[in-house]
């Protein structure tokens, strides 16, 4: 990791326990993200990767430890609108058109109408939904809905993009196409991305670094830097180095992700 620029996200000794059932979701997590990094969090269910994402976004308060985003406490960063978020489901507002869904965070930031319209226009182009501004979410396919959701998260140009299994509910082909689109958007905007996923190949394909987590208690089992050159393309998935890295992540998951449930074991 580059030492020059101050990290966008800095996590120091973060522990999160849930009082119900005395679950330790996260234990002593340390992690720092440099500007422009694309970091995937991967691990089996219950490893706390989604919890970690929410701690970064100040949606869950850690029991111990500190999180800073853009050099500010996470709470301050949230109220300053320093990050955009994409969930597994698009979470679009049915009663709003596509354009108004994308414009929602801009409304919250108090942008005027003309400025909003111009930005929404740009975002629609970015996610290739040019002709769909006046459609309602239910008129779109799942993949298109998720592109709207990404456009909404990026509309106010946050330095940080948090993505919680954004393509998990999509079919394989749509997922791979959106992977490519996401990379192209990321390279255009230069934002920092934290990407939670279940899929090893998705994590390796997208990321500049893969953070492998293990469950019960949730902790970082290891980190795999991904040295595949950008821009990545369909052929990247066929490169020998890609397979080596996939194997490396898989081995890390297998050896360090003890206490896997049988179906999680099978999925690896």
């Amino acid at each position: 990791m580059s030492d020059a620029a101050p990290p966008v996200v800095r996590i120091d000794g973060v522990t999160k326990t849930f009082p119900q059932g005395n679950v330790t979701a996260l234990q002593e997590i340390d992690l720092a993200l440099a500007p422009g990094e694309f970091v995937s969090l991967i691990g089996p269910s219950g490893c706390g990767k989604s919890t970690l994402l929410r701690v970064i976004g100040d949606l869950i308060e850690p029991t111990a430890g500190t999180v800073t985003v853009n050099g500010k406490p996470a709470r301050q960063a949230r109220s300053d609108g320093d990050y955009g978020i994409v969930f597994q489901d698009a979470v679009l507002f049915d009663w709003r058109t596509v354009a108004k869904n994308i414009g929602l965070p801009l409304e919250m930031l108090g942008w005027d109408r003309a400025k909003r319209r111009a930005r929404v226009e740009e975002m629609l182009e970015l996610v290739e939904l040019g002709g769909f501004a006046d459609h309602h979410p239910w008129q779109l396919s799942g993949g298109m809905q998720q592109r709207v959701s990404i456009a909404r998260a990026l509309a106010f140009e946050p330095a940080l993009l948090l993505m919680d299994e954004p393509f998990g509910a999509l079919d394989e082909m749509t997922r791979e196409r959106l992977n490519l689109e996401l990379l192209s958007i990321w390279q255009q905007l230069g934002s920092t991305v934290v990407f939670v996923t279940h899929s090893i190949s998705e994590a390796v394909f997208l990321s500049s670094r893969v953070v492998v987590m293990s469950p019960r208690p949730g902790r970082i089992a290891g980190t795999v830097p991904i040295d595949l050159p950008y821009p990545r393309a369909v052929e990247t998935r066929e490169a020998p180095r890609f397979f080596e890295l996939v194997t490396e992540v898989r081995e890390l998951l297998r050896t360090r992700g003890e206490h896997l449930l049988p179906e999680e074991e099978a999925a690896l």
Partner: protein
Amino acid sequence: MTNAAAAATVPHRLRLPGSVRRAAAVLAVVAVLLGLWELYRWVWTTTGWTWPFLVNDVSMPHVWTIVKAFGEPAQVNQPSLISILLHKALFTAKEAAAGFGIGAVIGFALGVILVHSRLLQRGFLPYIVGSQTIPILAIAPMVVVWVNPRLPGPLQGWGAVAVIAAYLTFFPVAINTLRGLQSADPRALELMRTYAASRWAVLWKLRVPTSLPYVFSALRLAATASVVGAIIGELPSGLQDGLGGAIINFNQYYSLEPQELWATNVIAAALGIAFFLVVVAAERIVVRRAPETLT
């Protein structure tokens, strides 16, 4: 297979527009109901059956007797019954509309307040529910006595009735607004938190739009309830200007001229249906939702 194919190739010009077909369906249902009324009458009078009640011109006047009554004056030197009833219906509609408005606003406001405080919910909900277990007829005289003296001149009389109608209206609106506001998707609430949205913004940009289908289904109930409330409210007020007064009046002459009470009932039902349809039309305009979730 061949049938389906034949149906599919019916020339387009033979198919009537949807609105015409719907209107035809409504008329067909009305015709069938009237036919059943007459059939029942005919079977019971010819056989002489008396169960569950004796059928004669008093208990079940002919459909055409009722229809004819609309055109004739109820008393000599008076305008026709239909014009009297329409005037009275207009008066009742005024009471019901005002009551509906008051009740809807109060109900909605209660829902908004209660969704923000579990404590208030626990404290107030039982009383809100309890309020509806008291018969409206028991409340109405008190409302008239309390409210009427406080009202300015133009609101005298009918204003108290509107309050009684509001008493029936606010309840379904409050309960359904609360449920609707609570039904916001937790992830959407989380999304609003990432924007550091104020309670106010969450309310207007997320909770209220989510609640609208719930609110409107309550408003549909409330629309008809407000008409019932207005009619009942007229009884203890001694108002003669509305349908409630007419019902009391024609009740006294029922054994002589039953068709007039029946005619009044038809108008009262039509008023309720009209209120209902206005709400349905408003819902069509206001609620933007996936077509399959619209009812």
